[in-house]
């Protein structure tokens, strides 16, 4: 059941009506049934897997919470971590690991591949709920969180349908209390949720899916494209990924809001960030905060406590290792490893040099210089992020390098002659190709990106919802109708493309 499909809209409508028509104490049960149905709509095969996982995790977390002996609690925690990480490694990394072992053996003159693992597809959202449950266990172990007594609510925490596919990775302290204290139906929440869902669907099926047409052609045929078309594909991918994932998050948060639940925000205008650190504070926030709280800080604390370590090890290792884990979490491919390492290096270098440069420019007397510095840093950050996205999207490392190499062949004379002749068709010709976007859709894509950025900029300064709610009813309803038809008629196609983060 695609979140941007009509099917999901009907499912959500029925769930909301049933949820608010049920007495408070049984409402969590309605959500659990809806979550099971939603999970099984992707294929019923894994319902037993997730049920077993819930039972084991519930038992282990209870034991961690109950046992007074720290050593025993630690053993339970390690058991819990292993039990949760093993399926993740099995489903996501076995094929990749076996390929690497085969490569090594081949170099050692073993003629044939030794491993041919036949791994079934991974259960939906395994990467996300594994991190959610690990955080829950670690919080219980550290005493930040009490274990949930009711298995049904714990099951719901693990499988809450809006979060099932790609998060956000919720913390128990935020979500579990909400299951025990359901709210009444709130008209304002429902209206806000609906608007947010509509905005998310717009980002997904109007912007992301349109950009995907161009991006897929270039990244899947890297030998065929050179110069500016490649650059455009990289920029388009940056916005495709953002609109795809933030669109998904908007739908999820909107759906939860309609049910009266507040979930973690996952994005905060990331492409307006003026540093990589700020970028990670506003991109996939639930993952980056998880990595920060459960890998970066503990690792840094441990390294700081170790005496005799060189300063550069203490400074460079935590961001590098954290981002390496982030890369590997995204998928079993060297491209993600490189992408993670790149961001780790960005962060490590930035932490070293950036504060001094920032201080210098912030104290500048001429405000225009400070503003220009901020703008240049935002641009620079965006370019560095885009460079990373090449590895994130490319099918393999050699294709990523091929694409990066192809950028150099800019063919400037061709474009200059087109500009000189005021020939727009000639200028756009390299960007129009079989299976790509036509001229109108190409220009529309660029306009949509500009529109998106303007809305984000505007919403960071004024409360658009408030302004909108103060409009006369007829205007608001007129806008709703126009927006609905805008989405329907400008969409690329109905529920054809999966969300990108679905694969992770």
């Amino acid at each position, binding site marked *: 059941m695609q979140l941007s*499909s*009509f*099917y999901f809209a*009907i499912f959500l409508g029925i769930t909301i*009506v049933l949820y*608010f028509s049920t007495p408070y104490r049984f409402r969590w049960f309605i959500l659990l049934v809806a979550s099971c149905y939603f999970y099984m709509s992707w294929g019923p095969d894994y319902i037993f897997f997730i049920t077993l996982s819930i039972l084991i995790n519930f038992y282990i977390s209870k034991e961690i919470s109950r046992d007074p002996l720290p050593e025993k609690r630690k053993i339970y925690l390690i058991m819990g971590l292993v039990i949760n990480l093993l399926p993740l490694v099995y489903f996501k990394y076995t094929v990749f690991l076996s390929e690497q072992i085969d490569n090594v053996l081949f170099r050692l003159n073993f003629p044939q591949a030794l491993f041919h693992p036949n791994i079934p597809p991974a259960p939906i959202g395994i990467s996300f709920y594994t991190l959610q449950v690990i955080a829950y266990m670690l919080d219980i172990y550290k005493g930040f969180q009490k274990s949930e007594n009711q298995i049904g609510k714990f099951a719901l925490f693990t499988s809450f349908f809006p979060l099932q596919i790609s998060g956000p990775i919720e913390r128990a302290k935020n979500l579990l209390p909400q299951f025990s204290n359901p709210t009444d*139906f709130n*008209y304002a929440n*429902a*209206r806000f949720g609906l608007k947010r869902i509509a905005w998310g669907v717009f980002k997904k099926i109007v912007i992301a899916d349109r950009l995907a047409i161009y991006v897929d*052609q270039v990244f*899947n*045929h890297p030998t*065929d*494209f050179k110069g500016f078309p490649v650059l455009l594909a990289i920029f388009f991918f940056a916005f495709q990924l953002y609109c795809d994932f933030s669109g998904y998050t908007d739908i999820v948060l909107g759906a939860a809001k309609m049910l009266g639940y507040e979930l973690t925000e996952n994005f905060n205008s990331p492409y307006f960030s003026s540093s990589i650190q700020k970028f990670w504070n506003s991109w996939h926030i639930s993952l980056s905060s998880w990595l920060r709280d459960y890998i970066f800080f503990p690792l840094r604390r441990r390294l700081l406590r170790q005496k005799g370590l060189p300063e550069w090890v203490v400074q460079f290792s935590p961001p590098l290792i954290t981002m390496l884990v982030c890369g590997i979490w995204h998928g079993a491919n060297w491209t993600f490893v490189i992408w993670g390492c790149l961001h780790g290096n960005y962060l490590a270098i930035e932490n070293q040099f950036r504060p001094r440069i920032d201080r210098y420019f912030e104290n500048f007397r001429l405000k225009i210089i400070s503003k220009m510095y901020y703008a240049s840093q935002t641009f620079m950050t965006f370019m560095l992020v885009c460079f990373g996205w090449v590895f994130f999207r490319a099918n393999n490392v050699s294709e990523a390098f091929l694409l990066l190499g192809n950028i150099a062949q800019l063919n400037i004379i061709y474009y200059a002659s087109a500009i000189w002749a005021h020939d727009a068709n000639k200028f756009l*010709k*390299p960007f129009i*190709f*079989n*299976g790509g976007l036509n001229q*109108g859709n190409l220009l529309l894509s660029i306009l949509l990106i500009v529109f998106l950025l303007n809305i984000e900029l505007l919403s960071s300064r004024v409360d658009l919802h408030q302004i909108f709610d103060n409009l006369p009813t007829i205007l608001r*309803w007129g806008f*709703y*109708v126009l927006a*609905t*038809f805008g989405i*329907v*008629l*400008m*969409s690329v*196609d*109905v529920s*054809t493309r999966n969300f990108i983060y679905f694969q992770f």
Partner: protein
Amino acid sequence: MAKFLYKILIFLVILKICDTLLSSFFFWSLQPKIALTEDIGSLNRMYHGEINADIVFFGSSRTSLHINPEIIQHTTGETAWNLGNDGSNFEQQELTLEDYLLYNKTPKLVAFEADLSSLDPSLLRFKTELFLPYRNDSSNAFNLFNSSWDESLYYWFFSSSVYKQQIPEILVDYKNIFNRIKNGGNIVEPLKVSKVLTVNRPDYVLINGAQLKKGQVSGQLPQTLPFPSPVIHFDLSQITIRERKFDELMQFANNRGLILVLIFPPYMKGEIDEEQRKTAIDFYLQLSRKYKNIYFLDYSQDSQLDNSLNFWWDGNHLNIKGANLFSREVGQELNQIIKSNK
């Protein structure tokens, strides 16, 4: 919550009313455009029973641009007509055949385009305006867009979305809309009752329905393709569903006593994926063996055509030289088939 549900219901009613209005407007705006440009009057001739040819070709641009009916007529000694249509897909071709048989005498031989694009269901919604002539009287045409219950509901609610790919054309075609309004909404009468349109567009060469674009006639490949186009990949994941569609067509042809020839048109070397090509050829060969009077002609790797740039307009369309050569080859094969069936 009752208040919220009540408002949602009112909103849905408003949406449906707006959708009906929009849908009618799109249909009203697009229909004359289709009648004027898409087939250069061929469909109108067909609906008035004025074609009555012995050999009729159905297909996309790779039929309309590749087949010269005059050459086919000359080679086979039978009258020929090209009902190929730019952007047309298998379903639309099938609907055209059904309607053709209603209004014209049954041809001796029907040639259907059967290539990779015919097996790709994602192309079903490419150029949806081609279904417009059938929309009035064929429930089948509309059902093509509904593969599941939620999709059916979606298209019932947003029937205007069927036209979404043509919205730019409607916007650009303001002159046509303006003229229609000026003439009380009737610049071109509905297709089935209209007189035969004879449209002499300067950029087309018309030969028995064949639509040879002028650019194609004089086009030189290197001028039209300064940048190489990538290999075209098709979605063949639903090939079994397509098999059912082809089966239906073959049974229909068998019941009507038609000789059905499936033609895989030529592609420039490297234009389509080799593995996909082989899959499609196997698929069509197996199908053609299932029924009597069904033939499959494979020109996907025509050695005369695929190596020479002189014959191509772009990677998957022949120029006039190529089209004439290809028509001769097809004509000779059809001649053999007709003789063997006499």
